[in-house]
């Protein structure tokens, strides 16, 4: 990276460029778009968690006046097996196609089985009610133990476990096995003075974005189509829709709306191909919007897990061996976040001997999607809970125990590579000094601490920087702005070009107006798309130097760029006045045409992010209710481009993690039907549930980024689960290994301990 710099605008708390439209209701989100002649599409969903589709009769529905198109699986092409890459989740295009519209089988309650387009949504509802489907019901497989049992009902009879040391000989619900190891695990445990172990479970949880999925699709008779939708990656919507429908990529234009939250959940598709086929059949644009009920039942939640962890340590706290057995629910189709969960579980620690085994398991629940640091919160909840118990057993301060084993630059990560500069020790040391670490606690109160980690991603981005005729700047990029990234892009362009922030505007362009970009995910936008913006701005500077050189009649390499102006290098005897960006822009017609800077890249060297979270809780011994009194999030951001939005990521991740720890869970009945598919009973934290969330940004620059940026969006959700659970342990003296720590579970544990 460049030398330590004196930044002019980086690190300031500017107002985001898209802000006014968002506080006045002008900003257009997914469901806000409409077209003349548009029809309303609705999806019929399976009433069974697991069943074969015997027959679909749409005749009665077709007769209803105002119904323009009805589609079922028969209207979709067969899609071959091919791994989905580039997104944030795992999966297969063939599965994606049948997840979008079931063919011969439904694998979860809420699975799409048919859809209609009608003049009004009321008519569409009536048409759905008139579709008759014969199902052959099968036993639902609703949890890991049932799914992994020897004689389990098979969700996919053709599924053989991939990745086993010896090829699987019979089908099972285990889609994949993965193993990481180093050293000799038996020797490592033999060297230990103390060995601790535990089994932990986490429930199915949802990202809980407030905006339901929505899209409008319109296709003409020539096969050219446009999709308007809320997504974290419109280029992925394009490629996935083209695969699922067998369409030419170039015939699909995807225009992203503003996006009302995603957290990984909007990195895949559900409605777009359905709306497209309905549009094709009806010859009209078709809009589909999910209800909240549909969002819970039919979009991808995060995996429920069962994790067994074992740690061996010396009396002084040095880890000698660690093992992890991790099973992740994938939902009705393979592709959970088991792999990243397995890669993250021991990432913060130096451990000579370890064994990590992961299982990707089918159950009759919606196919999981990415959820903020996908996989890491679950496995690290287990590990960080056990480390807390180990610290207690060894009578070592939990920060000191972690410091003793913490990775730093040069340590080899459990998942493979050697770390470059990372800020884990800095986070631990900051936690130790933080006033909240030593605040006095009252009766029934406890303090818990845990570490978080996420790799962060790079991947492909492109950006253009246009200099307008008055020297103002338009940045054109293709990463949907889900939390203020336009502001970060504008800050980086302004910094690089040396112009005031207010002179830069940022456009998130559609698939026909921006170069290719991977999804807004993996905490990659400020890092990778930001790097593209910096490079595109650099391209402008190169061009401006050339224009200035031509104007002055000197060589371009004798021109410098400083504070938004071209100036001759020191010692260059040029009797000229500096040329500002505005002056060069005004004159660009005479010096070679408009100023257009470009960059496209596959960003390498995303800096891993670490965090420490501390939670103070009070537990009501008579009701088992846990109140969070204080919460402190400390995280290495590398360099905070816009500190307020970095803090916002930390606070938002903390709130989601607290919800995951305390109350959020999918509750199913014995038929595999979700009982709490709404915000009333899927209990996400509300404003009165939380305290202010204290934040401390640590800045250990990422050497691979010009400004030292690391991704910050995902790390924040990893540590809160164990931080809260460890606080409950401290307050009650009892370790409750299964989440959520809902009042009935906590009270039952308290009463069991008394008995």
């Amino acid at each position, binding site marked *: 990276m460049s030398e330590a710099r004196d930044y002019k605008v980086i690190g300031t708390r500017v107002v985001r460029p898209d802000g006014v439209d968002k506080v*006045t209701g002008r900003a*257009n989100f997914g469901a806000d778009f409409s077209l003349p002649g548009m029809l309303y599409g609705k999806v019929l969903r399976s009433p069974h968690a697991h069943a074969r589709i015997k027959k679909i009769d749409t005749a009665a529905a077709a007769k209803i006046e105002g119904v323009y198109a009805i589609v079922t699986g028969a209207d979709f092409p067969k899609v071959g097996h091919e791994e989905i890459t580039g997104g944030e989740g795992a999966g297969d295009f063939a599965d994606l196609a049948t997840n979008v519209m079931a063919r011969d089988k439904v694998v979860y309650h809420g699975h799409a089985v048919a859809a209609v387009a009608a003049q009004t949504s009321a008519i569409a509802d009536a048409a759905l009610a008139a579709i008759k489907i014969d199902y052959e019901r099968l036993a639902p497989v609703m949890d890991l133990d049932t799914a992994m049992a020897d004689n389990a009902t098979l969700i996919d009879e053709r599924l053989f476990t991939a990745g086993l040391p010896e090829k699987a000989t019979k089908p099972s619900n285990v889609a994949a096995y993965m193993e990481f190891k180093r050293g000799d695990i038996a020797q490592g445990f033999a060297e230990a003075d103390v060995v601790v172990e535990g089994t932990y479970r986490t429930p199915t949880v949802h990202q809980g974005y407030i905006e339901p999925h929505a899209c409008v699709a319109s296709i003409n008779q020539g096969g050219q189509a446009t999709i308007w939708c809320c997504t974290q990656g419109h280029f992925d919507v394009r490629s996935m829709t083209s695969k699922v429908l067998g369409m030419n990529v170039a015939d699909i234009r995807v225009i992203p709306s503003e996006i009302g939250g995603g957290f990984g959940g909007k990195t895949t598709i559900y409605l777009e191909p359905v709306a497209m086929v309905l549009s094709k059949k009806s010859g009209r644009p078709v809009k589909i919007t999910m209800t909240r009920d549909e969002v819970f039942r039919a979009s991808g939640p995060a995996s429920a897990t069962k994790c067994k962890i074992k740690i061996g340590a010396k009396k002084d706290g040095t880890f000698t061996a660690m093992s992890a057995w991790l099973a992740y629910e994938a939902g009705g189709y393979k592709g959970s976040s088991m792999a990243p969960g397995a890669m993250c579980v021991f990432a913060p620690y130096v451990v000579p001997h370890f064994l990590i085994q992961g299982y990707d398991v089918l159950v009759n629940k919606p196919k999981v999607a990415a959820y903020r640091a996908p996989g890491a919160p679950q496995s690290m909840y287990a590990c960080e809970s056990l480390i807390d118990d180990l610290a207690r057993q060894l009578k070592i301060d939990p920060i000191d125990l972690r410091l003793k084993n913490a990775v730093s630059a040069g340590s080899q990560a459990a998942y493979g590579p050697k770390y470059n500069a990372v800020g884990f020790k800095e986070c631990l040391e900051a936690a130790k000094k933080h006033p909240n670490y030593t605040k006095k606690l009252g009766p029934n109160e406890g303090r818990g601490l845990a570490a978080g980690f996420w790799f962060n991603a790079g991947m492909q981005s492109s950006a253009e920087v246009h200099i307008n005729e008055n020297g103002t700047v338009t940045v054109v990029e293709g990463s949907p702005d889900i939390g203020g990234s336009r502001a970060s892009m504008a800050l980086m362009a302004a910094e690089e070009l040396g112009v005031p922030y207010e002179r830069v505007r940022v456009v998130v362009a559609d698939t026909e107006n921006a170069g290719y970009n991977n999804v807004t995910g993996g905490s990659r936008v400020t890092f990778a798309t930001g790097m593209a913006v910096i490079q595109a701005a650099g391209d402008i500077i190169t061009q401006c130097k050339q224009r200035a050189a031509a104007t002055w009649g000197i060589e371009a390499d004798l021109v410098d760029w400083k504070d938004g102006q071209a100036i001759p290098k020191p010692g260059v005897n040029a009797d000229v006045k500096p040329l500002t960006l505005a002056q060069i822009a005004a004159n660009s017609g005479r010096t070679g045409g408009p100023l257009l800077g470009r960059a496209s890249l596959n960003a390498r060297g995303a800096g891993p992010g670490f965090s420490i979270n501390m939670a103070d809780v009070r537990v009501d011994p008579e009701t088992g209710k846990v109140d969070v009194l204080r919460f402190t999030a400390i995280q290495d951001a590398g360099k905070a481009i816009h500190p307020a939005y970095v803090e*916002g990521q930390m606070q938002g991740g903390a709130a989601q993690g607290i919800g995951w720890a305390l109350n959020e869970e999918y509750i199913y009945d014995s038929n595999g039907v979700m009982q709490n598919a709404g915000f009333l009973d899927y209990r996400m934290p509300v404003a009165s549930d939380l305290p202010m969330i204290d934040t401390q940004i640590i800045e250990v620059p990422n050497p691979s980024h010009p400004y030292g940026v690391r991704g910050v969006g995902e790390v924040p959700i990893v540590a809160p689960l164990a931080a809260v659970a460890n606080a409950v342990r401290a307050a009650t003296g009892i370790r409750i290994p299964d989440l959520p720590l809902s009042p009935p579970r906590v009270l039952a544990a308290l009463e069991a301990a008394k008995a």
Partner: protein
Amino acid sequence: MSKTRVETKINGEQMEFLCEPQQSMLDVLRDTLGLTGTKEGCATGDCGACSVMLDGRLICSCLMLAVESNGRQLTTIEGISRGETLHPIQQKFLQHAALQCGICTPGFVVAAKALLDENPNPTEEEIRYHLAGNLCRCTGYDKIIRAVQDAAQTLRGEAS
């Protein structure tokens, strides 16, 4: 289906529309009147994204029949700022970075205005309970609460 004619005042402007008796105010605002600043997050009164004021009282527009608005006055997010200037609540949301994705923001702004209209000097706890019906999944509420506190101070004429 026979439609009902409704006359109402929205953001100070006299309006009339036709609706079906069972249609919600939210659906009419968004689909009939094109006022899409009011958002739908759940349609069951659990998220607050569709918050509006009916004769000055905060309600969820998803839980009100559109026909009930006949002869009443509604304020939506589109009516919070007038002319060239943002309302102080809107300004403070921007200054404090109290929004990330922005889908819940219109509902929060309307709900916060309803609170400060009634209680110009609320405590943090009062703000949190008043806004408990507005879900935000991005911010953890911290910056929203601070923005409302700061806006209250500005509206009281105190320097912040």
